[in-house]
């Protein structure tokens, strides 16, 4: 069948419902949020239409700069940890039989679909004093007394790597599964050890994929909002937590919206970078 441009109005029929739903329930809410970010807040949690930049001016405080700096630093750390763990893992996974791959993929999808609430609860149990891993260390005689490992930065980081690791693997999977196996075979024939072949042939061949994945995981980690609350202290709160806090508990919708718009701009900037990295990859 040749694909044709729509001729009659009725050819557009299938598009009507999806286009309407996405416009009314995604584009309009998005626009509403942008509009609200310029509104003026009234006492008692209400807001009135206005055009003021006060909500954006609040960014220029030291407190906000700290939160933003921490959010970015945390997301970068999570992304780097995930890439370091996931690239060799995914590479080895794609070299396994299809059956073994499916078992791992099901496990990864199951972890990926877990609610942040559940991940937060599970890790807070694992890091707790009464039911945590320190009890095992006490039993093994390494530690003298069980203790709580949270709230702490390490707990937040562990929880977020746990959440983002399956995502990283699944983003890397298509590129690695299609990687030409003759590349490594050639390296092996020429006498490189498997580890050396991995670092000198596989990694350079995947440079652009890895860059793009790093940015995607970074965005994913930027969206984490419950783990910093459940596993960390208030100084570990991220921009996402702050947005929720302002919107729900402080009833300051305009400020929450302004922060969200800012977060969108940061994210879109990074997506643009990803696309650029991808383009460069195709050209090379």
């Amino acid at each position, binding site marked *: 069948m040749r694909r044709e441009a729509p001729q009659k109005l009725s050819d557009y029929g299938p*598009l009507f419902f999806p286009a309407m739903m*996405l416009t009314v329930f995604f584009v309009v809410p998005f626009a509403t949020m942008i509009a609200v970010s310029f509104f003026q807040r009234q006492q008692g949690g209400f807001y009135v239409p206005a055009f003021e930049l006060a909500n954006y001016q609040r960014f220029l405080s030291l407190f906000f700069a700290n939160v933003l700096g921490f959010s970015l630093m945390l997301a970068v750390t999570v992304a780097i940890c995930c890439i370091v763990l996931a690239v060799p893992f995914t590479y*080895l996974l794609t070299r396994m039989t299809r059956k073994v791959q499916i078992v791992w993929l099901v496990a990864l999808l199951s972890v990926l*679909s877990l*609610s942040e609430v559940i991940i937060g609860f*599970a890790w807070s*149990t694992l890091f707790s004093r009464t*039911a945590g891993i320190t009890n095992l260390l006490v039993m093994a005689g390494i530690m003298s007394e069980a203790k709580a490992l949270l709230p702490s930065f390490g707990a937040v980081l562990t929880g977020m790597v*746990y959440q983002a690791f399956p995502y990283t693997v699944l983003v890397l999977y298509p590129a690695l599964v299609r990687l030409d196996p003759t590349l490594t075979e050639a390296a092996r024939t020429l006498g490189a050890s498997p580890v050396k072949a991995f670092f000198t042939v596989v990694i350079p061949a995947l440079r652009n994929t890895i860059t793009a994945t790093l940015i995607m995981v970074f965005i994913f980690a930027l969206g984490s909002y419950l783990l910093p609350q459940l596993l960390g202290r208030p100084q570990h709160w991220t921009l996402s937590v702050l947005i*929720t806090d302002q919107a729900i508990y402080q009833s300051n919708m305009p400020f929450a919206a302004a922060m969200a718009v800012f977060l969108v701009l940061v994210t879109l900037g990074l997506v643009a970078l990803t696309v650029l990295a991808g383009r460069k990859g195709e050209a090379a």
Partner: protein
Amino acid sequence: MTGALSKVYFFLIGLFLAAPMIVVAGVSVNAKQTLAFPPKGFSLSWYGEIFLNPEWRNALFASLTLAILSAALAVAIALPLAWFLWRRIAPWANIFQLLGIAPFTLPPVITALGLLTFWATTGFYGQPWTAVVSHAIFFVTLPLVTLSLGFTAIDRSLVEAAATMGADDRTIFRTVVLPLILPYIVSGYAFAFVLSLNEYIVAYMTVGFTMETLPIKIFNALRYGYTPTMASVTILFVATAAVIFSLVARFGDLPKLLGAMSSDDT
């Protein structure tokens, strides 16, 4: 040597992924209402509690209803869109594909806040059905990606043959396309269903004060301390996800589905 090394590496990653679930499974069978691991005594009563305690049962029921309906709506949005994009040449219509993928790519708090301001402005804030629509929009990406992939796998000459025999678009869709695309509809539905079941922030921001889904219930319960039902619910959720994804793998080609899914995602 390298083989052994990679086995150790896989074991460690497996341990990392499984460890929290092992501990939670352990505390979920404690005989008393204490947070202890290794468990003291053995009891499955905390699993019974999910269905016997009206608060947890209502939350489970709310979550299931929300997931069933929102995944269906997500497929209803994605299917005609994917069909149109495959059937017609209309480059400007790709904007809707982009709109379908955006909510899932942006940090979730943004979609959540957008929908919160929207429902508040239109006066529907807090109505249970708004959560269904919100989740459908938030997760429409998943069926959209699996369906787009499914359509590219259909041999266009089949459709051409049907058209030559005089079938109109509607008949072609019903008799030729639908049977071929069905596995992708099912897997798209399954992905949206499982994720909706687990979703917290969009549900919380849209209906958090009027309706308790299971993730909201767990979070609210966490604030007042620990109850073992959280642990049993967690295990129930992990098991549900594992069963559903195993079924997708059993009846579909999971590696292929994921191979193209993530590349479309970017």
